[in-house]
């Protein structure tokens, strides 16, 4: 075999790679030290890049990234004391601000290198020790750009969120018998696209191919474990994540996945410890936030308070700050009996957030608790009423939990139980977490006897009402049947059993009782609600067909 051939086989540099057209590429250099920033810019320009922008901090960089797409982003890890390059990258990726075609390189100094490398879910495309020579910078960039060029069609499809197309392109690229590294790159993108499409069994197949290509790659193991998580095989996730952690004790992403699996397995305490370890390894506002939430649910109020404070301290004034941290902190303070501190937190320290959106609702609800605890019941009730009016028709599970607890504390038991029941109904993916919150709120306020009824989201009561309605419908007592269903929908406005039954009832009503205008209008309303909640559902389609027959369309 020729040296050239061997070289290509080894994944080495094929000759055409020297022809990277640097002058066509744009770059952004983010570093708070101006001499460093300018040195790197000079090197990039010397390599041939004409479009090099610089930013001194994350906020400045964010503005530039929002307005233009960069082929290359070189970001210092140690941006400033509040936000690291890693936080910034996590933010860009979670907010989907980064173009799939952008190459993100983290610049680090030796001291921090070991903390950063490959420990996180959102890893950069490469790490580079800074400062480095122009030659080294160029050869790294050439390799990165070459890898990107091979993937480019898939990356462009990813940008347009055409995931089916991404998979098709990846399959095509795989038939070109790429070298090992390119093959791994392609399999990674393919698995990501399959994941977004919810094809978890296929995701596992793709990761199996990747594992067969190269064993013991952390992101492959993590990706497979994550697919198992989506398939709700939590014990499997726990086994896999534990092995991963043993091999890579700094792999924060594995701790976080394992913590989520523990939560699903109702092991809040174990989850708490894992989250704590991940925030010890790589502290960030996001991680302190998770620890604070978990600590609160476990009744560890001191820890909830100190972690919420840490989250605020680390994110204050930066783009990763969240008003929710003040809610966590003040709720912990209220529960600890320190209502003065809670009032101080919300009315003074978090003043800048005002009463906007969901935050405003929760803020009023927590303040209501604090004032009631301080003996000012009147102010408490007023704040509670304010929370209810700010809430409007919103269906946010988290806020309903906070409000429910506040209502119980203020003494409005009926409202409290209703809100908590609804918060369970609309909890979606965070069902377990919300259930824990609700249970805790009810125990804290002495309503243990009604816990089971509330935790099931009023389901039993609804099913009983639907049953009664069905009986009445069969004996043609349509109005009475409708009354029952309205009561059921009052417990949960989007309960599918009740809605399906209501649609069925109305179709029968139209057929047997004639085309009454009011009944007709309600029929349409129920059908459209069902169509929204159950798009292209066979049963709903049949209802529509039947409806058209009756009205003679």
């Amino acid at each position, binding site marked *: 075999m020729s*040296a050239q051939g*061997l*070289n290509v086989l*080894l*994944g*080495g*540099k094929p000759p055409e790679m020297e022809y990277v057209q640097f002058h066509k590429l744009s770059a952004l250099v983010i570093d708070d030290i101006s*001499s*460093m920033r300018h*040195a790197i810019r*000079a*090197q990039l320009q*010397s390599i041939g890049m004409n479009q090099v922008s610089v930013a001194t901090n994350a906020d400045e960089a964010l503005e530039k990234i929002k307005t233009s797409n960069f082929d290359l982003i070189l970001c210092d890890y140690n941006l400033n004391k509040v936000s690291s390059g890693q936080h910034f990258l996590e933010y860009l990726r979670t907010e989907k601000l980064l173009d799939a075609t952008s190459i993100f390189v983290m610049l680090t*100094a*030796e*001291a921090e*290198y*070991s903390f950063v*490398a*490959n420990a996180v879910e959102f890893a950069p495309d490469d790490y580079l*020790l800074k*400062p480095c*020579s*122009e*030659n*080294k910078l160029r*050869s*790294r960039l050439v*390799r990165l750009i070459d890898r990107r060029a091979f993937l480019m069609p898939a990356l462009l499809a990813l940008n347009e969120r055409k995931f089916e197309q991404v998979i098709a392109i990846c399959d095509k690229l795989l038939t070109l018998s790429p070298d*090992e*590294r390119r093959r791994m790159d392609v399999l990674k993108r393919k698995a990501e696209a399959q994941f977004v499409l919810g094809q978890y069994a296929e995701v596992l197949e793709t990761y199996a191919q990747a594992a067969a290509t*190269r064993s013991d*790659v952390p992101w492959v193991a993590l990706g497979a474990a994550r697919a198992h998580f989506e398939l709700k095989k939590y014990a499997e996730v726990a086994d896999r994540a534990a092995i991963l952690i043993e091999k890579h004790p700094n792999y924060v992403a594995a701790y976080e996945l394992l913590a989520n699996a523990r939560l699903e397995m109702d092991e809040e305490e174990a989850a708490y410890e894992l989250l704590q370890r991940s925030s010890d390894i790589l502290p960030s506002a996001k991680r302190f936030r998770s620890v604070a939430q978990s600590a609160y649910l476990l009744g560890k109020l001191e820890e909830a308070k100190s972690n919420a404070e840490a989250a605020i301290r680390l994110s204050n004034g930066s783009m990763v700050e969240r008003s929710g941290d003040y809610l966590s902190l003040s709720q912990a303070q209220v529960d600890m009996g320190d209502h003065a501190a809670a009032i101080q937190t919300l009315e003074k320290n978090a003043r800048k957030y005002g009463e906007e959106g969901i935050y405003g609702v929760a803020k009023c609800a927590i303040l209501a608790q604090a004032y009631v605890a301080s003996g000012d019941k009147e102010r408490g009730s007023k704040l509670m009423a304010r929370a209810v009016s700010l809430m409007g028709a919103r269906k946010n599970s988290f806020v309903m939990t906070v409000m429910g607890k506040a209502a119980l504390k203020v003494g409005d038991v009926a409202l409290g139980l209703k809100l908590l029941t609804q918060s369970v109904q609309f909890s979606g993916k965070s069902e377990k977490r919300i259930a824990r919150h609700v249970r805790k709120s009810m125990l804290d306020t002495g309503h243990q006897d009604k816990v089971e009824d509330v935790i099931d989201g009023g389901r039993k009561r609804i099913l009983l009402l639907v049953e009664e309605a069905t009986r009445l419908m069969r004996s043609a007592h349509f109005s009475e049947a409708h009354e029952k269903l309205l009561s059921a929908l009052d417990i949960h406005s989007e309960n599918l059993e009740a809605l399906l039954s209501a649609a069925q009832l109305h179709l029968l009503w139209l057929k047997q009782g004639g085309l009454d205008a009011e009944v007709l209008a309600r029929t349409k309303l129920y059908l459209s609600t069902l169509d929204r909640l159950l798009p292209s559902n066979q049963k709903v389609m049949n209802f529509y067909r039947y409806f058209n027959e009756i009205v003679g369309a």
Partner: protein
Amino acid sequence: MERVLSALVIHDIKNALALLEIDLEQLNHHADIPPEGRHAYHRCIELKNRLVSFLTLYKHEQSGLQPVAVEVSLAEFVEDLVGNSSSAMMSESHHGHPITVRAATERMSPEGGFAQFDENLLELALESAINNAVRYAHHTVEVWFEQSGDKVVFRVADDGVGVGLVDERMQRKTADTSASTGLGLALCKAVADAHGSGAVSLENVQGGGTLFSMTLCNAS
């Protein structure tokens, strides 16, 4: 407190030196740079390399190096090592004629072609081995790797005077040569140590020249 302060100062100096190196590097792109400019650039690289080597060794002795093992393509690694080698670039200033430093692709025996190690530490160690080889080579220095099972051996061969004179040349107390040679070998041993079970050797090659070998075990 004093220790923290000196650590800060020394890292500050290291960074300043690295930035100065970039300034000089950029200056050297100008066609009309006088020979003194090139010389200053090379001196700066040497100084920085020596300081970084010294700091790495110091850390090894004080608290131990903590390698960050990542998956590395061996062929790419050796190619970049050679392509970016400052010793190769500066070889002419030692000899008056350039020494060819090449990645000996034909001698590479890959088994998988990937290995796990701290590429920054390895680069530092092997660059000092290349630097050493360049000083004593007549014309050519070759760099390659051999991989079998869990083991990866990096080799640097020169066509110079041979190992019989190595000890003597290490004893020589002239200028900075012996200091940097001693530092270089100690650094290679430290980096090999840090990767678990590693070994470093320097031996004679039939027909002249020396062969430097650095073995990393459990690198798969």
